[in-house]
């Protein structure tokens, strides 16, 4: 009898280490975040029940409206980054991957080469571009023979962030696309050649549908990654000029850990922002799946 029980416990033994971490760092925080969002809490003093006030503040129902204005401005900045940078980080890697898949002699070398910036940490990349984009001594202005204030004026600050993020991130999706394109059955490509399809037609009719799952996967991961953008804005432009590049992640971070330790408000912000992010991701997934089925 005892032996029988032990055997039944084996699967749970395999599962339990993972489940412990999943519950402690995956499930408990969700509940905790909701609880904290209903309180006023600076972490040092005891929690104070605050009802819906944190949310009311965010939606401008109470207070001077400054909290609400700053928060929604930051959310809009994040949305701008998502809407501009996600398509860039899909289209450029896709074109590059098509090129690399075609240039067979240097294919695996190129995969490694273009992946190189992605292995660098965001802070290293920011230090590098902070120098290259310097108004007076940066090489970019040097080559242009101009003094463009790349990091201190709009819209240049956003252009710099977009350009640097693309330079940094192009390799991540590229490498997945090359792997997917190389896996496209050769018979399909040969058949389309016999039918007289040109390179462009072949790309849209054969290649794109064949790598559909990889495309959907990368669009979702890239969207989520863009929503979480923080390092670029914090290190390269420090949220400036005039909070013009301050993102949602940055305002949540500052609210919770930037001196005032307003945990309650920061948790409410995280929940609202998380809900927006989730809605956006699900909507874009739905649209893609529908388009893919057509």
């Amino acid at each position: 009898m005892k032996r029988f029980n032990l055997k039944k416990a084996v699967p749970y033994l395999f599962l339990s280490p993972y489940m412990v971490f999943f519950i402690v760092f995956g499930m408990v925080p969700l509940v905790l975040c909701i609880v904290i969002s209903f309180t006023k809490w600076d972490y040092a003093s005891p929690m104070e029940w605050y009802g819906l006030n944190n949310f009311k503040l965010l939606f401008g129902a109470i207070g001077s409206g400054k909290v609400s204005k700053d928060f929604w401005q930051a959310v809009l900045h994040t949305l701008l980054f998502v809407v501009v940078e996600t398509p860039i980080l899909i289209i450029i890697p896709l074109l590059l991957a098509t090129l690399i898949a075609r240039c067979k002699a240097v294919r695996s070398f190129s995969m490694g080469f273009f992946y190189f910036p992605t292995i660098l940490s965001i802070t290293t990349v920011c230090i590098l571009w902070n120098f290259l984009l310097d108004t007076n001594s940066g090489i970019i202005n040097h080559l242009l023979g101009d003094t463009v204030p790349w990091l201190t004026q709009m819209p240049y600050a956003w252009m710099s962030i977009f350009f640097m993020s693309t330079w940094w991130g192009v390799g991540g999706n590229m490498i997945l696309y090359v792997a997917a394109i190389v896996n496209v059955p050769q018979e399909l490509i040969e058949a389309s050649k016999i039918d007289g399809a040109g390179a462009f037609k072949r790309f849209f009719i054969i290649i794109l549908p064949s790598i559909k799952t990889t495309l959907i996967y990368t669009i979702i991961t890239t969207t989520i990654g863009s929503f979480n953008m923080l390092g670029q804005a914090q290190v390269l432009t420090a949220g400036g000029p005039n909070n013009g590049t301050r993102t949602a992640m940055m305002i949540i971070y500052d609210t919770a850990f930037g001196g005032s330790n307003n945990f309650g408000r920061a948790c409410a912000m995280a929940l609202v922002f998380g809900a927006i992010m989730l809605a956006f991701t699900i909507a874009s997934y739905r649209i893609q799946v529908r388009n893919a089925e057509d």
Partner: protein
Amino acid sequence: MKFDVSKRSLKSRWLEYRNNHSAKHIIVSVALYLALFLCAMVILLPSVWAVMTSFKEETAVLDANVTLFPKKWILDNYKDILANHNVPIFTWFWNSLKIAVTNVVLYLLIASMAAYAFSRLKFKGREVLFWIAMSSMMIPGVINIIPNYVIIDKLGLVDNMFAMVLPGLGGIGGVFLLRQFMKNIPTSYDESARIDGANEFQIYFKIIVPLCIPVLVTLAIFTFQGSWNDYVWPLIVTNSAQSRTLTAGLATFSGSYAHQYGKQMAGAVLSALPILLVFIFGQKYFIKGISISGGVKG
């Protein structure tokens, strides 16, 4: 296939190539290789410029007639940074490495055990548990940051390297990847081992894990990179400069060398070198692994 370079001249190879391809094909190929080369320059030039700057004197960096190669090569930028106790680059590097390696080892072990249970063992609630865990992927990470800080602090782990290891171990992504892979391994392997008297732990460790090595390598690289590049979490759970990781520590680095670009670039180069070496040596496995996991996803 090996090319027999010694016996065939370039000329004869060119003639063979010329015979097998149309003129249009060759012109298009040249144009495409050229385009690829230009793209490569966009990636390469900024990096080369940074490396060269790190060997220049500060006055040469700011010179209006600045050249790519230093007129006078100096090592002072590197010496200065390595001697500065406020930017302990090697301590940061060591921390990053320790944390990333611990992360990889523990996550691979825990995730593969869970994936083994989810894919090859039968027990009550298997599917329900798996899909509950999978649905956690929908919860945006930003929601977890503040509560996780509270949990880590209550566990007394602030400034401890495990603060940067433990939360990641609850991630479902790697479990999912491994489960998909393990599902494709024929069950006859386990059954014959079971007949030979092997228990589940032996089957897991001696049969399944060795078969999963390609996908484990891929997962190891992704986990390593994720840990190495994590920026915000290490900033939150460390107070002292000594316990920071390279990515988090460097965030304040450029501030302490404002407009001293030679030194900033030396710091950037030092921070990039270790991971670059890891990447160069692991590249072959990495690309192989990506192709495999691309197959799993696709």
